[in-house]
Each structure stands twice: as structure tokens, then as C-alpha cells.
């Protein structure tokens, strides 16, 4: 019997040229793969994702694993390079033989990896923002972060409530800003919004007063929306205050939803509104809020383990990992196909990003209630009560 197994293993090794060093304990562990941008320009996204995955996989294993099996996490760092991401994706599928994948920090690397996982029929839960990841729906691809389209809709909903319809856009020309700008322009008519000014700035620009002056001098602008990401929106916000435009309501996107935005923009950030996940205002949520428990526990666990402030980006990785783990429990199997079917059946999953209800036509499963409208007051986030 033993020699037969050995023979099988040798044959398998020969045929597939796969390292079998883990063969001995293959019965007790399952491999989950991840490709993240831990270094490079998107490292501020990839780093918290990486830390979150490692932290929680250790916790899960310490608690006995999933369905009696320990999880072995295989993480590769693509450095923000989509080419590398694709190479690592192939390695995860062919060498590591992962049963599922949680990762893909940026939209670029996610899109590059999708064909690999689709061909291998391995479920892939992406952590990238753009709607292209799940629209059109691909059988094996899911994602956890809110889309930029939802952010636009949330902002427009708030504007509509305040009876403001003529807006100025000032967008970054980076991937995030350009994509969100396009989505905002697309959904604006649905909310009766009229875009009267449409300006852009480069992601590394250091002064946006020229663009803002133009918006300021455009007749009829009732509110300004800034789709952008990184330090750009902080400079826009500072210039906005410099030009004395505070009387015009100003909206940022979920792209700036981290404490450092308030630090960088300083007093100029007062009164700025933005849609963001519940994670940022965990302590301010009413106790009745279904997400309160999840977000406060995640925040506490992450901050005590890493000594760094929590970000929504790590939260996306938390959601992805637990959607997968829950699906594995329900499937009670390590078969990728069965796990995929169970991921698609995710209903009422309470994550840091919202309450996830997936379906065959919706591989994100979040609605607008996943976003909270926040206003910056006194150097901190505050929930905007609906109706104000």
C-alpha cells in the first residue's frame, strides 16, 4: 500500500514537475493563494491586505482550521506590476495548486490574472475597486470592495436630498480618478445631476488652484465632487479652502477614506463629505447596526497586531477571506468547483464593507447601504444622519 502511494506520488511528480515536499501533510492542509501589491506604488493598499490575511489565517489555524484542515497561505508580491501578477497567478495554479485565491490589489493586476483562474476553474475573490472586475459576470471571479459607480450614486443621492443639481467635477487622471469620473458622468442623469464643470489634474500635480479657480468662476456650480486617490485630493482640498470656496459643498470619494487624508488636508478638510465603509466610523455606529460588531472587532484585532491604524483596504481582504472560509465550511469540501458554487450563494454575510448578498448575476453583492455618508468635523469622521 505504502509503496503504491509512493509510486503514485513519483509518477505525479514526474508528470507535473511539481515539488512534492508538502505531499506528506497534504491531507491536513489546504492552500489558499494570494497575489498582492505589498511593495510599489500601490503598497498602501497591498500592505494592510497582506497583514490582514496573515493575521486571520493564523487565527483560523489556531482555532483548528476550516472543516478540520489548516489553511496554508501562499502570498506573492507583484510590486504593482500586472505582468508579474499574471506570472504569480500561473505559479499559484500550476505549482502551488491552490484551491482558491483571495487577492489582486489593483484593477490592473486583477484583470491580468482573471484568465488564469477562469481557465483553471479556481475561485478568485479580487480586492480591486473597478466595476470591470465583475461586470460582465465571470463564473469564477468575485470581489469585495465597493465600486466607484456606487460611490458616485451615493454622492448623488446625498446631493439630491440637499436639492443640489449643478455640480463641478475635478478628477485625478490616474486609473482610480479617471474610472470614477467616467462612472459619475454615466450615472449623473439618473439622479438629475448636471455636470457644469469638468476639470482634471495629474496624479502627481502639486497645485490645483488653476482648475479650482475655473470651477469657482463657472456660473451655477452648487457642489464639487473630487474623484481621486492618494495625495491629490488632499492638495485639492487645501487649495479649495485657500480659494475660499468652502461655501460650496465639497465631496470626496471613498478613495481618501483613511485618517491620513484628514491629517494631510488639516483644517481645510472641515465640512468635506465622502461615502465610505462602516469600518471608518465603527465606534460611532449605533449598537443596533449589524456591522458594528464585525468592524469594531476587526479594527481592534488589526490595530493591536500591527500597531497601525486600520484602513478599509485591509477590510476588503478580511471580507474576501471570510466569504471564502464560510463557503468552504458550507461546501465541506476542498473542491474548487463546489467552493465556487457556495461563494455565489453567499447571503447575509456581514463584512467590514457591508452586508454581502451574492447571486449568479451579482458577484459583489453590496448595495448602496454599504456606503455611509460621512462628514469631516473637528478632525474626525462623523456620520451624516439621513435627511440632513
Amino acid at each position: 500500500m505504502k509503496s503504491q502511494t509512493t509510486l503514485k506520488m513519483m509518477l505525479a511528480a514526474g508528470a507535473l514537475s511539481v515539488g512534492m515536499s508538502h505531499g506528506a501533510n497534504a491531507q491536513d492542509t489546504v492552500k489558499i493563494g494570494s497575489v498582492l501589491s505589498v511593495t510599489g506604488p500601490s503598497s498602501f493598499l497591498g500592505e494592510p491586505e497582506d497583514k490582514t490575511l496573515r493575521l486571520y489565517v493564523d487565527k483560523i489555524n489556531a482555532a483548528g482550521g476550516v472543516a478540520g484542515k489548516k489553511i496554508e497561505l501562499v502570498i506573492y508580491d507583484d510590486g504593482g506590476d500586472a505582468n508579474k501578477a499574471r506570472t504569480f497567478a500561473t505559479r499559484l495554479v500550476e505549482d502551488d495548486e491552490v484551491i482558491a485565491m483571495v487577492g489582486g490589489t489593483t484593477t490592473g493586476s486583477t484583470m491580468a490574472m482573471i484568465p488564469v483562474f477562469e481557465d483553471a476553474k479556481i475561485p478568485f475573490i479580487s480586492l480591486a475597486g473597478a466595476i470591470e472586475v465583475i461586470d460582465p459576470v465571470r463564473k469564477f471571479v468575485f470581489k469585495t470592495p465597493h465600486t466607484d459607480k456606487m460611490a458616485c450614486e451615493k454622492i448623488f443621492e446625498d446631493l439630491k436630498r440637499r436639492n443640489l443639481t449643478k455640480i463641478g467635477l475635478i478628477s485625478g487622471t490616474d486609473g482610480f480618478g479617471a474610472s470614477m469620473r467616467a462612472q459619475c458622468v454615466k450615472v449623473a442623469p439618473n439622479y438629475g445631476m448636471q455636470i457644469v464643470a469638468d476639470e482634471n489634474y495629474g496624479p502627481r500635480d502639486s497645485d490645483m488652484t488653476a482648475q479650482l479657480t475655473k470651477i469657482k468662476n463657472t456660473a451655477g456650480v452648487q457642489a464639487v465632487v473630487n474623484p481621486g486617490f492618494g495625495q491629490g485630493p488632499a492638495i485639492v482640498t487645501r487649495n479649495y479652502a485657500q480659494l475660499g470656496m468652502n461655501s460650496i459643498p465639497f465631496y470626496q470619494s471613498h478613495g481618501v477614506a483613511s485618517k491620513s487624508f484628514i491629517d494631510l488636508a488639516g483644517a481645510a478638510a472641515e465640512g468635506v463629505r465622502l461615502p465610505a465603509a462602516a469600518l471608518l466610523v465603527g465606534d460611532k455606529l449605533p449598537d443596533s447596526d449589524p456591522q458594528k460588531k464585525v468592524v469594531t472587532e476587526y479594527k481592534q484585532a488589526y490595530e493591536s497586531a500591527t500597531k497601525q491604524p486600520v484602513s478599509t483596504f485591509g477590510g476588503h481582504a478580511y471580507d474576501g477571506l471570510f466569504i471564502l472560509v464560510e463557503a468552504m465550511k458550507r461546501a465541506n469540501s476542498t473542491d474548487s468547483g463546489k467552493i465556487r458554487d457556495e461563494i455565489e450563494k453567499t447571503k447575509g454575510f456581514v463584512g467590514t464593507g457591508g452586508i454581502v448578498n451574492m447571486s449568479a448575476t451579482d458577484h459583489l453583492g453590496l448595495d448602496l447601504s454599504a456606503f455611509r455618508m460621512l462628514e469631516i468635523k473637528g478632525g474626525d469622521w462623523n456620520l451624516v444622519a439621513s435627511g440632513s
Partner: protein
Amino acid sequence: MAEFLQFLISGLTVGAVYALVALGFTLIYNASGVVNFAQGEFVMLGGMVTVFASAAGVPLPLAAVIAVVAAVVIGLLLHRFAIEPARGASAVTLIIITIGASILLRGLAAIVFDKQFHKLPGFTGETPIDILGAAVQPQSFWVLGGTAVVVVALYVFLEHTLLGKAVLATAANRLAARLVGINTTTIMALAFGGSAAIGAIAGILVTPITLTNYDVGTLLALKGFAAAMLGGMGNPLGAVVGGLLLGLLEAFGAGYLSSTYKDAFAFLVILIVLFAAPQGLFGRRAVERV
């Protein structure tokens, strides 16, 4: 009019930073014929060291001095351990070395500091000043004034001190300079130290306006290089005019034309200038000796 002034001042402020970066390029280029692509990293170091020193409790003026000293030390090390051992190599080789050095410095900064953006408080408050309807950050005056001081100091140094004349002599003809007893290696080191100091000063002055992080230098080096080319590589006056012009082109391009194409517009103008005057606005015409 208020609009015009707003664009003008915002263009001059950004342009002054480009001018300082371009000056750094010019100084090293003059002494060694090398285009130092690590110039942007000196700007980054100036800002980042000041941020972290002042976060550690050092008063801002002292933090700024520490930052300049740190940048100069790194500039000298760069010269001693990367450029000097390769002397005699072609200019292209040396330029590639500086590109390598810039990647190294950026990587080290990401590890030693962090990858987040940081800010400094404005030196004299952050309440905008109203000038004929244009809102101006007080820091803009620091940037413009600081640039003017650096330019004048550099001019006086080059034209009215023996050491400065030695730099010019080395620039004009290295062999001849050595024959009259100038230690050209020291002059080269001086150029690297000086241009690191100029870069660091630019970084300190501009951080309250533009914020800084570990890779803020990449784009500044590119813009500074474009400014130096526009003004004429090797001419300090050209570097300043080129920098200011580039800043103004961007601001007026974004304000009056299209913000989407403002960079394209600025570079288009540079291309046209270089077609008409390949040596740049103030460049020396290169004379090939046969």
C-alpha cells in the same frame, strides 16, 4: 484679473520649484557633464528629513538645517562612491549610474521613513493672503523668496569667488583647469554637495504646499530636467527662466485651455522651442573641436 493673478502666482510657485531642481541639474552638469537624475531625490530628502526630524521634536529651523546637511552628505557620498570610481567613463554611463542611485535612494527612503504622504506646517501660517482678488498661500512667498536667495547666492558664488571661478573653469575645460592647478575632483564633489543642498532647500520650502513622500522626486526630476533643457542645459539663468516658464505654462494651460492637456501643452511648447533653438533659450552653442 483676479483669475489671471491666481494663475500667475500658482504658476510662479510651482515654477520656482522646477527652477531649483533645474539649477541643481545645471551645477552638476557644468562641473562634470553629467545629468544627475538623482536630483529629484535630494528634493525628497529635504522634505522627508525635515518632516521626520520635526516629528521627533526638533524645532523646524533646526530640522531644516539637519535635512540640508543630510542631503549634502548623501550628495557627497554619491559622488565619492558612485561617480568618482567611474571617472573616465562616458557621460551616458555616468547618467545611468545616477538613475541607479535615484532608485536606490528612493528604495532606502521607503524603508527608513515610510510610504505615507507627510506635510509640514506653513512657515508663517496658512491663512491665505488676498492680492487683488487672488488667494495666495503665505508659503508661496517663502518658495519664491527662497528661490531668489538661492539664485543670487549661486550667482555671487560663481562670479565673485575664487572657488566659484574654479567651478566655471572646470566646466569650461576640465583639462585646462587641471593644468592651472585646480583640483577638479574637489570641484566635482563641491558641485554634488551644492546641488544636493539646493535640492534639499527646494524640498523643504515646497513641502508645506505640495506634501511629500518617498517617491515625490521622480516627477520633479523630470520637470526640472525639462526646465533645464528649455532654458539651455548648463546655464543657471536659463534654468531659472526655464523653470518659471514651465510652471507658468502649466498653470495658464490648465486655467485657460484644458486641464486634461496641460502637461501635453507645456511639453508641446518646449518641443517647439527646442526645434527653433536646439540649445534652449540661453544655451551655449556647442562647438566641436576637431
